[in-house]
């Protein structure tokens, strides 16, 4: 199935971008918002219970589960890029895609004069670039649902 969901969470735990592909669980926008903020707080607790101190502890970067894997990338600005994929997708591939998503975010959202920081991303160019980037990694039909606008 490949990559089946992408979300971008801002530094206060708000969901600012959300895209689903083949295999994504059905969830309402409210549910997606709630899960994004739960993930944000879970990361805080994960840093609190850490048995070792780190110079820059930002919470979870990877989650391995029985049916899927999650990779999160958090640059110093606090915004967070999260990819969900099935187990056959290589972890290194996900990691490099996340870094490139950050570049797309910088290019198409942050450089857009009408985009306000920490607000939902509604940029056509960003959507197109993300679709192009993830094209080969999603399920065979590509996008099944229109991106859910946060």
């Amino acid at each position: 199935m490949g990559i089946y969901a992408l979300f971008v969470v801002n530094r206060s735990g708000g969901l600012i971008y959300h895209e689903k592909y083949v295999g994504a669980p059905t969830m309402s926008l409210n549910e997606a918002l709630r899960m994004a903020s739960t993930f944000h707080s879970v990361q805080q607790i994960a840093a609190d219970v850490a048995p070792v101190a780190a110079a820059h502890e930002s919470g979870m970067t990877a989650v391995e589960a029985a049916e899927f894997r999650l990779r999160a990338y958090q640059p110093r600005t606090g915004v967070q890029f999260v990819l969900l994929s099935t187990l056959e997708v290589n972890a290194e591939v996900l990691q490099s895609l996340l870094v490139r998503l950050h570049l797309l975010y910088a290019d198409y959202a942050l450089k857009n004069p009408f985009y306000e920081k920490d607000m939902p991303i509604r940029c056509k160019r960003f959507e197109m670039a993300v679709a192009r980037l993830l094209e080969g990694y999603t399920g065979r039909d590509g996008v099944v649902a229109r991106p859910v606008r946060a």
Partner: protein
Amino acid sequence: MSTAVFYNFYLFNREGACLCYREWNRPRPGVDALQDQRNMFGLLFAMKQLCNGWAPVEEGATALAAEAPDAAWDPDARLRTARPLLRSYTTASYQLHYLETPTGLRFVLTTSVHAGDLTRVLQRIYREAYVECAARNPLYRLGTSVMSDAFRKRLDAIVRSAL
């Protein structure tokens, strides 16, 4: 694998009581042990819910609501049908490995990062330490903390052999 450092171990029952806590190496000591255990259980509880919400669906499969018809009026239905999906998570400084048995026991092991998949080690702790030294101990009452020396020795031995 050989360079992995084991930090600590938690065993929770399904009510969230910490039955056993063992620490081998903890460079950043917790402020309050009880609070630390509560945080850990809360974290795992939330992660279980999240993982169930994130799990992919097979093509053509119906939504969860259809599988559990009582989900609409019973808010706890989702909690009861939640599957233990979490295996491990990694942060910048440590990795946490997780095993949940059908009886609701949660085995938690934290190590340094890049320790790989330690599901086997957790299964051995369950099989060789918990079952042998707690469940089969006639003096042990289920749900009370596991304080036997034998359990601790087994646990240490398993972890040492996994290094």
